[in-house]
């Protein structure tokens, strides 16, 4: 239902990514409840919702990083295990220790070597792939820098480059714009759009409605349950947004944030 921008005629029998009745609970507290939607074609897809809506959990459950209480996730109609090499994950930036003693190049190389077998270190090919990925995100000059000595936006681009080095078909990104300034946001969105144009599917968890409307081809509104999914213009309606954010104090924060950001950029 969500496939837009379908300039490509390649219609496979299965959608690129589909969720059926996905339910996840932490302890007894349900985080996601019967989430059911699919993404047919390559596009730039946003998962939008308030804090604690289960957006990140949706990605993690899709990648078997958290246990599903029920439901299925299919990539091209297949189980994750069969298609892992075609999928790249970009976790939230705060989940790692940026004081870790590795260079930008080391981290991006991990993307390339993560595709190799046990104990294989990789060689020239992996090195070149990592360099190309770094170049792609505009960080080639920072290859030898320790990762803690980068700005938030640069760190996010390092994570993106590591995912690019996996040469995947589907990219799942968790809050790629968190702690990223407006300039870097545009840069990252441009890279993601480029990936989409190359026929990749890019799914990003995002919490800023204003930029979401600007960049995403299609979105899913999530607040524990799926509120709506489809082309951005059709989904981001006042009614749907009210439904997603209703009864939450955080909507006030969101609006406050949006106003603040709007004021700064204008």
């Amino acid at each position, binding site marked *: 239902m969500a496939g837009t921008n379908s300039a490509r005629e390649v219609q496979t029998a299965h959608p690129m990514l589909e969720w059926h009745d996905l339910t996840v609970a932490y302890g007894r507290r349900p985080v996601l409840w019967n989430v059911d939607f699919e993404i047919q074609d390559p596009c730039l897809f946003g998962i939008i919702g308030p804090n604690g809506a289960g957006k990140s959990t949706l990605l993690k459950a899709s990648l078997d990083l958290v246990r599903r209480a029920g439901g299925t996730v299919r990539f091209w109609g297949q189980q994750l295990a069969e298609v892992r090499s075609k999928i790249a994950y970009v*976790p939230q930036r705060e989940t790692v220790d940026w004081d*870790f*003693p590795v260079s930008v190049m080391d981290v991006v190389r991990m993307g390339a070597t993560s595709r190799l077998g*046990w104990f294989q270190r990789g060689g020239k090919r992996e090195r070149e792939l990592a360099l190309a990925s770094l170049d792609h995100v505009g960080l080639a000059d920072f290859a030898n820098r320790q990762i803690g000595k980068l*700005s938030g*936006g640069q760190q996010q681009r390092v994570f993106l480059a590591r995912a690019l080095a996996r040469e995947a078909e589907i990219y799942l990104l968790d809050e790629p714009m968190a702690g990223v300034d407006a300039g870097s946001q545009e840069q990252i969105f441009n890279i993601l759009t480029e990936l989409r144009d190359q026929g990749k599917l890019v799914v990003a968890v995002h919490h800023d409605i204003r930029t979401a409307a600007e960049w995403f081809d299609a979105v899913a509104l999530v607040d524990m349950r799926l509120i709506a999914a489809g082309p951005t213009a059709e989904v981001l309606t006042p009614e749907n947004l009210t439904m997603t954010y209703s009864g939450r104090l955080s909507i006030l924060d969101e609006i406050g944030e949006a106003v603040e950001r709007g004021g700064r950029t204008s």
Partner: protein
Amino acid sequence: MIHRAVAIAFLPYNTLVVAAGVAAVGCAAGVIGTFGVLRKRALVGDAAAHATLVGVASALLFTGQRDLGVLLIGGLLSAMIAIVLLVLIRKFTRTRDDAATAIVLSVSFGLGITLISGMVSRGIPGSGGLERFLLGHTASLTAHDALLLGSVSVIGVLCIVIGLKEATMVAFDPDFAAAAGWPAATIDLVLIALIAVMVVVGLPAAGAVLVTALVVIPPAVARQWTERLIPMLVIAGLVGLLSALAGVVLSSLAVQVPTGPVVVLVATAFLILSILVAPCRGILWRTRVVIGLSSVSLTKTEGGADTPRVMERKL
């Protein structure tokens, strides 16, 4: 002084083998400890270390053997049990992580000490020697013991060398590794098990109370000097090796002194030196930067969010 130096150069064969074995232990503890520190597992290692006494004492009690290998296997078992308990407490109770670690550490240590005291007071053969597992006492090691400790250490280092890619990937970002299909939890478990093994073979050198220092201080020293993993592993290995060696030699000169405290003091000397003078991270270096470049850093902040954060480290 001179006759002491000569005495070291002509140490008997047994002492030389023991020195080499313990040096290997120090080196391996530094290398494997690096992953423990990077994964923020230093306290887990400490809990495991304090838990070894129960196993060592039980091994003597149940087998009646005083062989170091047998005692250490006992120590390893109880260290593993402590780690499992720790994981279970964290998973099934609302106890916070640090509290859970402290509980396992103190309870298992108390149990070990009680067991040893009871065995000593009942005059169980060999129980007098158990004290050396408290603070470390390399003077009583045989060449055979040292070979055992050395071989286990070499195997431990080899594990890291072979699995460096996997260990690094999981230590840095377990979620990314798991999403890419690597068994991150299992690799993590292997790393913890390796730390437990190092803590156990480090017992004769540093004792249950202090062996954590052998696993934690060398990586802390190494991190001061480098921003890269492989140099960090090498430096941590060297610092561990030198500290352990110094401990063996100094405590063999003064037989009354247990090895553990000497090892820890030497390692700490390295640490203090490094915190002071290491490039980039050392206090002296950073003070110099702040004074010398303060004008530059003022102009640089204009660049906004993309300005490198070199100066922002907590000073």
